[in-house]
């Protein structure tokens, strides 16, 4: 409750609008409840970091935002999730369109076993782009946005699996950008990368923040403070606190937040 209220203040202060609105979200894996009524708003064109100890429900929460949890059998959602103004769990909601507008980057880079070009072109193709010149344009733009163009422009027709781990992850980000999303969800996008690649991905997030609404799960507190505007602290399926990143890290309101960010548990 507190968290939401504080957020409301900051919202007015920065005059941004809300892209994702979640109210009383509960999520069940079978009989076990992984999220116990989450309420929060995610502001437009800002980076919101989700932190919290392992198993607290960060990934689960993230995956409710583009309904990737639908793929897991025997799960159930309660409460309201509005993305870009629409209740995404309403019957008949267009899932393909949701996932086009809400992109996702996974913990382990997962390029398709196709060429670099085909990896990026896949998304636009399935959403109906046929024209070769348009596709080439989209591919170049996405790769430039993902700060990968210069590294791969001479090997567009080579397998994406030949790229380094960090390059693969940026390729996956470019692939997500290629369908022109508004929100990008990232689940620990740098946790499998070496420090240099991690820095590259972080720089990229900072560059993208002005164009996209980004939600990023991270275990790395420094990373959260470097890249995010807002930080949400999850604990055992509850949202404990949400605030502007500098505030949350310097003077957390909740004892549990303080314990976590000072490394006393988790």
């Amino acid at each position, binding site marked *: 409750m507190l968290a939401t209220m504080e957020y409301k203040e900051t919202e007015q202060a920065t005059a941004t609008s809300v892209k994702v609105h979640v109210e009383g979200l509960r999520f069940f894996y079978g009989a076990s409840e992984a999220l116990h009524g989450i309420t929060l708003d995610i502001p437009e064109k800002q980076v919101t970091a989700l932190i919290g100890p392992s198993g607290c429900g960060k990934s689960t929460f993230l995956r409710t935002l583009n309904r990737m949890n639908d793929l897991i059998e025997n799960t159930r959602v309660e409460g309201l999730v509005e993305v870009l103004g629409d209740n995404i769990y309403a019957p008949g909601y267009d899932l393909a369109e949701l996932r086009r507008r809400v992109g996702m980057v996974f913990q382990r880079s*997962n390029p*398709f076993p196709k060429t670099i070009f085909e990896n990026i072109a*896949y998304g636009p193709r399935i959403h109906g782009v046929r024209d070769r010149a348009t596709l080439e344009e989209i591919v170049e733009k996405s790769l430039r946005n993902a700060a990968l163009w210069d590294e791969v422009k001479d090997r567009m027709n080579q397998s994406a699996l030949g790229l380094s781990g960090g390059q693969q992850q940026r390729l996956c980000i470019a692939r997500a950008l290629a369908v022109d999303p508004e929100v990008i969800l990232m689940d620990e996008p740098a946790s499998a990368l070496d420090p240099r690649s991690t820095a590259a991905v972080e720089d990229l997030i900072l560059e993208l923040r002005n164009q996209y609404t980004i939600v990023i799960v991270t275990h790395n507190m420094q990373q959260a403070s470097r890249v995010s505007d807002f930080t949400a602290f999850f604990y055992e399926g509850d949202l404990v606190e949400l605030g502007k990143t500098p505030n949350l890290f310097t003077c957390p309101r909740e004892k549990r937040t303080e314990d976590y960010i000072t490394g006393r548990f988790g």
Partner: protein
Amino acid sequence: MKLVNRKRRTARRYFLDRLVRYSVYFLCGVAILPLFFIFGFIFSKGITILDWEFLTSLPKSIGESGGGVVNAITGSLYLVGIAASVAIPLGVAAGTYLSEYRGSKLANILGQAVDVLNGVPSIVIGLVVYELVVLPMGGFSAISGGIALGMIMIPVITRSTEETLKMLPKSLKEASLALGASYATTVLRVVLPAGLTGIITGILVSLARVAGETAPLLFTAFGNPFVNLDPLKPVSSLPALIFNYAVSPYEDWHRLAWGSACVLLLGILALNLFSRWLSRRYRWY
């Protein structure tokens, strides 16, 4: 005292180690001996027969020497082609289903059915095709032979497709779905292409297997002394020709049989080697 003991034990261990190793070598040798025997025998008998005439001309009538088996070579290719066009779509579809719906009740039943089909003797498959295709159509035909071979191929392709697709990482499918692709698009444009090498390998292996099948062809494709490309007419094949000519009393026909065996063996060997090369060269995961 202790030291001596330990030395003795070490020596014993060495001896045992060597004994086991040499027994394994020996048994391996025994196991592949038949292979060398078959290849050596067939090649020594058949390779000298292979020449342009053998590959491109029809068998001569009894008493004339020379001639070839072009009818059987084209017939075998034709039959295998029909079989592949029957079995590939069905086998790949079934394998995809088994992999995608693993654990479901229907998938379990289908999997069992495929295993049973795999165990049905090929002559029984031939008999069934004879009853269901040859008799109603009123005669032996290439199409009935192709169907019989196709039924033998289906379980092999199904299982290899299933195994290949099961090995693909789940994250691949997630990546596609997260871009807004439908389930069908994901399977057709991401999953199947990612498993293509493995699927093709399985197809090649199944082709190699049916290329040598004889029994089901005897009362389906039957045989034909001429080159035939009409699916409704009987067609010759290498195995059937070998069978017929080898049991004949004519020296010239024996020669054709040995040559055909050589061609068949080379073809199967090539398919196997190619499939191995393919699966090494183009393995994504």
